[in-house]
């Protein structure tokens, strides 16, 4: 059995007195893409943020690489977890190159090694290095910004990637392109990922396993084929949404 990079054990979380997460148990094994699926307010983003410590869990334990998150230096731990959010959150005053090289620089890599890494990552996400490395985020389209965001998350080759609805604000065509590239990228770099989305098609396309959240609790953890046949209420609600306009892919 492969070892779990990430173990979420009985994690609960309350924000401002309101329970947001209830007793979540979830493991992410090496090489998996676990998609956290749920509607707005289901707690999926909060769960992602308890993993890298942006939101503290009120109860339970998160373990990363076999060690309790509370024993990690948060800065060191986060540098081993790539992070991509919806609006990419690129640094507007830095070039693409500087953005992607952030974690390697923080880790004090040699400049030549950082430059080589940036070039490799730009190619991996489908952006020509010569054309893009010196651009600023404002000179990029939404899809290009997200690609740079993904390249930045891969910066120092972290063992775990966290995605918070990275493609949600893209137009459908660009979104599909990036989703395809995500699958492609995963085949080549074999990354482990925890991926938040409210889009069931995206979940079915990208996930090795889907973890379905409802009102802060896990309703179901299933592979995409299992999910398509799942009978739980929230799973059926999500599936109903795509059966109306065509077969699930």
């Amino acid at each position, binding site marked *: 059995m492969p070892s779990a990079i990430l173990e979420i054990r009985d994690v609960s979380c309350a924000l401002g007195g309101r329970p947001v997460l209830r007793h979540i148990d979830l493991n992410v094994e090496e090489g998996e893409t676990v998609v956290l699926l749920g509607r707005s307010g289901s707690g999926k983003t909060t769960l992602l943020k308890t993993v*890298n410590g*942006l939101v503290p869990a009120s109860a339970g334990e998160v373990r990363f690489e076999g060690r309790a998150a509370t024993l990690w230096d*948060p*800065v*060191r*731990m*986060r*540098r081993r*977890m790539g*992070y991509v*959010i*919806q*609006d*990419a*959150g*690129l*640094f*507007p*005053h830095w070039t693409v190159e500087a953005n992607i090289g*952030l*974690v390697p620089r*923080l880790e004090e890599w040699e400049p030549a090694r950082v430059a080589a890494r940036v070039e490799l990552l730009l190619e991996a996400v489908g952006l020509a290095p010569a054309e893009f490395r010196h651009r*600023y985020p*404002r000179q990029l389209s939404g899809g290009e910004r997200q690609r740079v965001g993904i390249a*930045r*998350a891969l*910066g120092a080759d972290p063992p775990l990637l*966290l995605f918070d609805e990275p493609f949600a604000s893209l137009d459908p065509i660009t979104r599909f392109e990036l989703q395809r590239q995500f699958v492609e990228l995963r085949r080549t770099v074999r990354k482990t990922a925890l991926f938040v989305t409210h889009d069931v098609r995206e979940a079915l396309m990208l996930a090795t396993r889907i973890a379905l959240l409802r009102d802060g609790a896990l309703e179901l953890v299933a592979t995409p084929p299992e999910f398509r046949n799942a009978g739980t209420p929230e799973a059926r609600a999500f599936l109903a949404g795509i059966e109306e306009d065509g077969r699930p892919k």
Partner: protein
Amino acid sequence: MNGSLAPEILSLSLQHLRLVGITIAIAVALALPAAVLLARRPAARRWVLGLANIAQTVPSLALFGFLLPLIGIGEHTAILALSLYALLPILRSTLTGILGVDPSVRESAMAMGMTPRQILWQVELPLAVPSIVAGLRIATVTTIGTATIAAFIGAGGLGVFLVRGIAMMDKQALLAGALPAAAMALLADEGLEWIERRLSPA
């Protein structure tokens, strides 16, 4: 212009510049660290900005008057009072700049494993620079004007001409003080505006 006034205009202008330069340097040295500290403390921020606002409403001539018995006549008193006035715009604009950083940018910085210090120096302050310069510009232009009043408490500068012009009803002396001060303010305004534009990241 009267040839005999020229050397005096030059020396008083230099004195005026010195007064403004020292004042702005002190105000920046106090306002920047204060803004950095207050950016993370909303409760303290309200108090400090409130107090600074009240201080700002005291007329400058009155403030000079209050300070006179405490630290006496001369340049020190003027610089202290002028720094108090210059402080607020710089403090406020620096705070605006830091607090105005896109939350998603700050969130990624933290999530990528930057330390709070790295976030401050590499992300928040660089992104706040245009705003800081905007505050600096307001403070500088205001100080150039207000510094003319410092002559009333013996601090020198171009205000010396104004004091003399008013006392002796000498139009030429008034112009000798007012025109260089206005020119200086315009130049500072233009120059800092140019820098502000150059430094805008987006």
